[in-house]
């Protein structure tokens, strides 16, 4: 012992500790390279385009630097300033409505003994399968000038804030519902037992146990809805009428007036509230994690006939609305001429006779969505794997993770406009990508990166963190373990991610509306253009084509997960 004590004392006294650097193994080099590539991809496809918008907003039409002059013009023009207020109002009101309805719906799914929960769960996801243009088109059929329920509005017009709020609420509903279902499902039954033993009434229990445990979910749902609403382009474009919002204003400035500088200013203004909402949401989510303890006992609701019946009624009404909106669009797509000739026809599906690129657009969309699903899933998993499993290089890992979280905060219109500026820069060697299928795929991957990345990270986190250590000790290269263990175990999550990418690539309008070329028109953009041209029934038909496709993919996914996958995942059974 004395010898060691002396050595230790010497070490402190005069041997300045030299820093130990482990030689990098080949594996580690591969990890670092992947990390670097993903980081470079995110910087190039996201940070640089955003920078292009910011710098463009400080230039005049000729490209000369004018400082904040464009912003001064923007805020000095009452009409433009009003647009920002409109957006904030619509986003706040819609998010409030959506969160309220979604909370009740989620409560019914998780905390009551209402029957047909499975059915209501599936129905609630319907809006995700459609582009946001669809509810707007359906609302025109229902409440528009020829609408069959026009009288219900007591003379108010559906073209404007009312239409936007209803349409966007339909479309955002499932997103808020998913967050709130998780928040309400993950509560601790023992808190309720404690409340009961202490003789708290049901109202007091709700206020002191249910609401507090769901409050982070509520805040998160609100801000996610807010971000989705303020960033949405499809609904206000179709049904906004004279009521202008930021996302549409960018389009008008850029496509209508070719005023790129003002477009960039509006884009920056749109970016601000989205980023603020995003930051608050991230902050809240971090708190939510700390709230859940692993030892919580899941809450199991007990039957209460009156409550269950009331919630069944509420969910039925919601389901009728959700299915009704989809149903009207489907019905309208098969009708000769609303509302005068209601006979059945397939003419509306003869897209080649209309503007918008015809059936070619649909097949382009399928192609784009497939590429996005395949390439996006590969990039996302490689990135998540590098972020999760690289030892050391903490700074690089957290920067890549941050870059992966960022797309959530960037509205599609802003991202798309950034690409316009960046890829049209004179001398940009990547300029050849503009108007190609590749840029559509890349922009869609980046736009929907965050949720995919989180799904992949969650799946990887469920693996034992020591798999890589074990392989290292057994002298098995990490890539071998990745292909033999990590990937097979994560197959279900990888499928989830690819389906998410596919469906969103089919439905998205925002980013791609600036990027498609004459040969790369897309189905969702065709819906927009046909609606613009007044061909509303074919627009509904194309929107329904997207829905049919999404449903097919979801069904395939379900079948694969239930059937084929069960064989390769035999080890999951005990």
């Amino acid at each position, binding site marked *: 012992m004395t010898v060691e004590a002396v050595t230790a004392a010497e*070490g402190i006294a005069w041997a300045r500790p030299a820093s130990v650097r482990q030689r990098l193994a080949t*594996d580690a080099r591969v990890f670092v390279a992947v990390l670097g590539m993903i980081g470079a991809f995110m910087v190039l496809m996201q940070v640089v385009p955003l920078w292009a918008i910011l710098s463009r907003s400080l230039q005049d039409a000729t490209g000369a630097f004018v400082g904040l002059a464009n912003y001064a013009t923007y805020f000095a023009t009452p009409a433009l300033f009003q647009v920002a207020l409109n957006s904030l109002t619509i986003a706040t009101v819609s998010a409030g409505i959506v969160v309220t309805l979604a909370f009740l719906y989620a409560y019914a799914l998780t905390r009551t003994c209402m029957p047909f929960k499975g059915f209501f769960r599936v129905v609630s996801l319907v809006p995700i399968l459609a582009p946001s243009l669809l509810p707007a088109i359906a609302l025109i059929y229902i409440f528009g000038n020829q609408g069959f329920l026009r009288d219900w509005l007591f003379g108010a017009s559906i073209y404007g804030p009312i239409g936007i709020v209803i349409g966007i609420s339909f479309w955002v509903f499932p997103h808020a519902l998913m967050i709130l279902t998780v928040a309400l499902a993950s509560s601790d039954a023992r808190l309720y037992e404690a409340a009961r033993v202490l003789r708290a009434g049901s109202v007091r229990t709700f206020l002191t146990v249910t609401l507090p445990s769901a409050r982070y979910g509520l805040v998160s749902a609100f801000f996610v809805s807010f971000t989705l609403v303020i960033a949405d382009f499809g609904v206000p474009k179709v049904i906004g009428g004279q009521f202008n919002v930021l996302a549409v204003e960018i389009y008008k400035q850029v496509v209508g007036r070719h005023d790129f500088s003002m477009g960039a200013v509006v884009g920056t203004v749109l970016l601000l509230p989205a980023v603020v909402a995003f930051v608050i949401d991230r902050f809240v989510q971090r708190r939510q994690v700390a709230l859940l303890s692993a030892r919580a006992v899941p809450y199991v609701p007990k039957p209460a006939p009156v409550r269950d019946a009331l919630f069944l009624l509420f969910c039925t009404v919601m389901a009728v609305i959700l299915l009704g909106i989809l149903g009207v669009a489907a019905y309208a797509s098969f009708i000769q001429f609303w509302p005068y000739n209601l006979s059945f026809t397939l003419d509306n599906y003869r897209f080649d006779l209309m503007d918008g690129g015809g059936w070619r657009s649909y097949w382009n969309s399928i192609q784009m969505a497939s590429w996005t699903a395949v390439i996006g899933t590969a990039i996302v998993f490689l990135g998540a794997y590098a972020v999760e499993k690289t030892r050391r290089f903490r700074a690089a890992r957290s920067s890549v993770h941050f870059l992966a979280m960022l797309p959530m905060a960037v509205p599609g219109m802003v991202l798309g406009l950034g690409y316009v500026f960046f890829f049209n820069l004179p001398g940009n060697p990547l300029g050849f990508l503009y108007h190609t299928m590749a840029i559509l795929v890349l922009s869609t991957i980046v736009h929907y990166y965050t949720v995919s990345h989180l799904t992949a990270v969650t799946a990887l986190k469920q693996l034992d963190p*020591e798999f890589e250590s074990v*392989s290292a000790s057994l002298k098995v290269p990490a890539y071998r373990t990745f292909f*033999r263990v990590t990937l097979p175990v994560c197959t279900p999550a990888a499928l989830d991610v690819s389906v998410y990418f596919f469906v969103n690539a089919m439905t998205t309008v925002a980013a791609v509306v600036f990027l498609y070329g004459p040969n790369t028109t897309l189905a969702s953009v065709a819906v927009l253009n046909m609606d613009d041209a007044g061909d509303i029934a074919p627009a509904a038909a194309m929107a329904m084509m997207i829905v049919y496709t999404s449903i097919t993919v979801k069904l395939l996914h379900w079948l694969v997960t239930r059937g084929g996958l069960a064989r390769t*995942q035999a*080890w999951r059974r005990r």
Partner: protein
Amino acid sequence: MFLEALDLTKRFGTTIALDAVSLDVAEGEFVCFLGPSGCGKTTLLRCIAGLETHDSGTIRQRGQDITHQPPEARDFGIVFQSYALFPNLSIEKNVGYGLNGRDWPRARRRERVAEMMAVVGLEGQEHKYPSQLSGGQQQRVALARALAPGPSLLLLDEPLSALDAKVRERLRREIKGLQRRLGVTTIMVTHDQEEALSMADRVVVMSDGRIEQVGSPAEVYSHPCNPFVADFIGTMNFLPAESSGNGRLRLGDAWDLTVDAGTAPAAPAGPVTCCVRPQHLALSRNGLSGVNAFPARVRSIEYLGSMYRAVVSPEGLDDVLLRVDLAPEQLMALTPAPDDRLTLHLPPESLRLFAASAPALTRAE
């Protein structure tokens, strides 16, 4: 020396996980790192494996400096607390996972897997998946997988703490027997002193990133070198006292203790901590005859299954609580009840002295 660690230091932010730790491990030895959680024992193991990079210091294996080697280039097998079995591979494939490349043609590989399955007693389970096995069986698969390539060093990171008490005890014997048969140098991290004492050839007691004592299980148990080790291993009573420097101790005003010079050599004059294990104390109704016999009051009696534990306070020192172990027949003979006044005997040869500033003096649990 088979493995030498010299002056290893590792910081996580401001906390020092390893503070200039030096240690030698001989070939074929079974060494246990023992200490409370956060003492640096797992960090030390991971530094030896190369899974953690220490800030300064040197590690040599068979005389070769491996400080800068990544784990892939070092020679060891490892078993984790979670086992880290690959869930989608069969037991056979898990065990054979490290048997790749030119050294392991198919036939030899199959042979080796079969051999390892036999060694850990899992013949016939080859085609099952990890989730179909019990915890103890999974543990054995992890052991077989780590040993299959024939590493010269086996690292075990709390390998038994996820198991039931019964299974744990059986696997303790099995791992020890296996280690002895294969002669593989083994380092095991544990916070369970019973595990360390029953399995190790040498125990390394750690706390706060430092090594407190290295020695055989018997050494660290009966000759702890400081109050921390005395307290951490086994159960120990602590008495604050004043040493006169000539083999006599004073406790409070009235107590005058004799200390055996052989077991507590030359305690300097001044405040000291006197340690004595519960099983070395005795209670009687014989009156105050003999060496170190003092009046004490019974505070409570606990039943511990194989024995009873009495908590007593020396008379006049009400805030000092001493635990005394009593065999059932002793208890029958004595029939102590709370508040009884009995005689407490402190055998001089069982008393150990440390310079003062010992851990908490009264630790009645």
